């Protein structure tokens, strides 16, 4: 049982690592997109404000 559990632990740890790496990359993509969109939104709101 312990040997099987050892192998399960190794696999889960590896999957953990890979998942965390993917999440980390996706977080940065979302972060940059949000910042870019927020700035574009501010410009849009300013333009709409002036138009009114």
């Amino acid at each position, binding site marked *: *049982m*312990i*040997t099987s*559990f*050892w192998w399960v*632990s*190794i696999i*889960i*740890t590896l999957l*953990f*690592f890979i*998942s*965390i790496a993917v*999440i*980390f990359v*996706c*977080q*940065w*993509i*979302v*972060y940059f*997109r*949000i*910042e*870019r*969109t*927020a700035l*574009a*939104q501010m410009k*849009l709101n300013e333009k*709409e404000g002036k138009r009114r």
Partner: protein
Amino acid sequence: MISEALMIFTLVSIWISLLMSMTTLGGAIHFWLQKSQELVYITPLPSYPKVTIVVPAHNEEIVIAQTVRAILDLHYPAERVEVLLFADNCNDRTAQEMRRIADLPQYRSREVKIIERVGSGGKAGVLNDALNIAHGEYIGVYDADAMPETNALYFLVKKLNEDPARYMAVFGRNKTRNAKQNFLTKCINQEIVVTQRVQHCAIWHMFKIGRIPGTNFIINRDFAKSIGGWSDGALTEDTDISFKIMQSGKLIALAYNSEAFQQEPERVHDYYFQRLRWAKGNYQVVTRNFTVLFKPSNWRVKLEVVYYSAIFFWFNAAIVLSNVIFLANICVLIARAFEPNLAIPFTFGDSNSSLMQILLLNWLLMIVLYMLQISFALSTQYGQATTDQIWISLASYFTYSQLFILVSLHAVLSVFLDAVLHRNGSVWVKTKRFND
């Protein structure tokens, strides 16, 4: 053998809980990869249903004026908004503060009614009273401390208009307006951002499941009446009605752009008893709905029951057990300084060393995942993902998040004793408000 089995059970349980977290996080990532590039245009809506906004307020003289102003300043046709302000069992100046704002020249022509209520049922009782006197097609609810952003109602109705036949309720998010006050409010802010920007977005995106948050939401008035309204005296009337809506096959839609700003507890005492009420209320709702797992019923309700049951019972038990194992081993290791022959209670025998290293690595990765989840949630808000937040999340892992174990255990014990001793478990502890 038994100690090994207990350790394996604990670890496998925690791994499964992490799998659930990662699934949710994956759904949120997919949602935000799409939404993070969308600009928001405030354009006229195809329809503006009449909305009755209800504000239940019990001794809220400090914060009610700001909330009433924010509601009356909502960007929504004034003639399509009815406002019902309930000063519920108040012994302060809540009603006077409501009148002071409603009497201002710019609001005198508005449809505002102030009701000084003396009755039972708490917030659910107020909402049920409102159901009977409201003229709006929809009931909107804002807590006394929850100031809606100018377009909050606009976004709720915009989402509703996408599918009014299926969307019986629409909810937005509630930002923490006193987030920077102290360490506790910073941690609460992080938790709320994760709940709203990760969990709510993920489960809506993946399963079309919504959870009414108690404030900043609208619900179809006739539908609410048909399902019997809110459960009087319920500790978590929002969770309770969410289950009722899903049971009927209808949906609770998420309008992620709709925002309100609410105060969170600034003292540990207030925080603890607020969370205790939520935990007790959620335990009550889950145990009441547990039998749906074994009967033909809506699959969304079954999924929510499985989720809540797993979190509240199974994973909590695993975390408590893991803490007991950890503390027992630490205590024996310290005691070994005085008595070297003491046996460490929880080990894996000869395979101990390599397994313990792997498990230690897993433990560190869990901390990283916790911080990453918070960091991701904050990155979905402009200007929120800062270095300070990373340090706060690290500190909160060892402090704030551990409080949940205490709250959870207390809630289970309290619900059990309420049942056995026939106590009235529906007692609310008022959260202290602050003039901000």
